[in-house]
């Protein structure tokens, strides 16, 4: 059963929705720029094409350190997606502290990108990887503070199942003031976790031409792309579970759930299309300054019961 949910929910379903979401993202971006945009199956075709290409390892780079990180990143995304799905479908099945496990696993993709960047022996990749590290350090603090708000509201329970069932009884946390503030903070952190504009500082196509991914080709790049596309499902889904009552599959609630998800993806896409890239020092100041203050205010309000 556990293997089935790991394979089906964690990989197949998440990858399918993630690839579809990345198509929505590219299509909306194209429409914003008055272009036609790619056909529906384009993200899938991209992955298949990359799987069929030659995988090159740069001269002098360690083969293990270069080719292992994509696999580590992808498997952590699969694990966290399976965890979220199982909790969402059956809130009673969770274990104590699965929220903490999810937060841990969600940082591993960024760490995998950093490892790959440093292993590839390319100066631009090293610059990108060090930026990724600074970005990770900056957004983790407000992200964890924002996650504290649902925990407080669920009566200091660190189980995803408890957070979901409290929301099913008393309405979603997004409806309260502290919940809304924490949701905004989590949304900004999600943008940085996904590595999208204005926080695509680590990749910065026009500046350090892909950053940590610069030396990756063939199937290693395909795994990284699949990992990023799957994160485009996993992170909004995580936010939905924490603040918006999850994804319920019965009757009209399914339509609401899909609306919530597509709405989050569209919001991410609009933010990415209407903002310029910020510098890394600006991003760190933004997350440690205003965003952390906002998250702290949300936590205090949640403690007062607002």
């Amino acid at each position: 059963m556990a293997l089935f949910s790991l394979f089906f929910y964690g990989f197949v379903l998440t990858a399918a929705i993630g690839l579809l979401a990345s198509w929505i993202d590219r299509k909306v971006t194209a429409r914003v720029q008055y272009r036609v945009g790619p056909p529906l199956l384009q993200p899938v075709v991209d992955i298949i094409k990359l799987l069929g290409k030659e995988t090159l390892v740069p001269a002098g780079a360690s083969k293990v350190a270069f080719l292992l990180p994509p696999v580590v990143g992808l498997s952590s995304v699969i694990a966290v997606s399976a965890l979220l799905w199982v909790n969402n479908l059956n809130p009673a099945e969770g274990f104590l502290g699965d929220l903490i496990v999810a937060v841990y696993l969600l940082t591993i993709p960024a760490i995998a990108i950093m490892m790959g960047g440093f292993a590839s022996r390319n100066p631009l990749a090293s610059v990108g990887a060090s930026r990724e590290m600074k970005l990770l350090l900056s957004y983790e603090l407000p992200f964890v503070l924002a996650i504290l708000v649902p925990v407080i509201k669920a009566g200091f329970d660190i189980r995803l199942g408890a957070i979901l069932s409290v929301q099913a009884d008393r309405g979603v946390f997004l409806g309260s003031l502290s919940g809304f503030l924490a949701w905004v903070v989590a949304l900004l952190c999600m943008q940085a976790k996904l590595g999208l504009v204005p926080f695509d500082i680590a990749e910065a196509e026009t500046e350090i031409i892909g950053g940590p991914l610069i030396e990756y080709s063939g199937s290693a790049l395909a795994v990284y792309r699949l990992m990023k596309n799957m994160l485009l499902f996993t992170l909004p889904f995580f936010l939905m579970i924490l603040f918006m009552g999850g994804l319920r599959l019965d009757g009209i609630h399914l339509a609401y759930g899909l609306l919530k998800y597509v709405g989050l993806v569209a919001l991410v896409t609009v933010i990415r299309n209407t903002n310029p890239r910020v510098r890394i020092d600006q991003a760190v100041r933004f997350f440690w300054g205003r965003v952390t203050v906002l998250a702290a205010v949300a936590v205090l309000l949640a403690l007062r019961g607002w």
Partner: protein
Amino acid sequence: MSIKLKALLKSPWVFHLSTGSCNNCDIEVLDCLTPRFDIERFGMLLAGSIRHADVLLVTGSANRKSVVRLKQLYEQVPKPCLVVAIGECSLSRGMFIHSYNCPVPLDKIIPVDVYIPGCPPKPEAIIAGVVKLINRVSEKAAAKK
């Protein structure tokens, strides 16, 4: 046609390489990405890194300084890859044909799959050239069977 080749032709990521052109062809290449022409319709993306590329768009007259880099980059593309020569200079060296600095045309240095003439070629011509390339490759694969 194998699924590998089919996927390659449906999502050719292009890498844009100037070997000493006057920048006019390069501007026309960038024009293909603008809303008016939008080559992302065909799944083409402009790759920043040579390791992500499937198609090498070469402009310019391949002068002595850039030939070294050109060979190096051609070796760094993950195979299979295709090469497109864009503009008069990369086809036959154009007005630099008698120059001391451009001893041989591009197709004597690396294998070229399709030639797009013009000084500079229009974006329409570039897109038509790439379509011809795709048709030729798929015909070749069909003939092989």
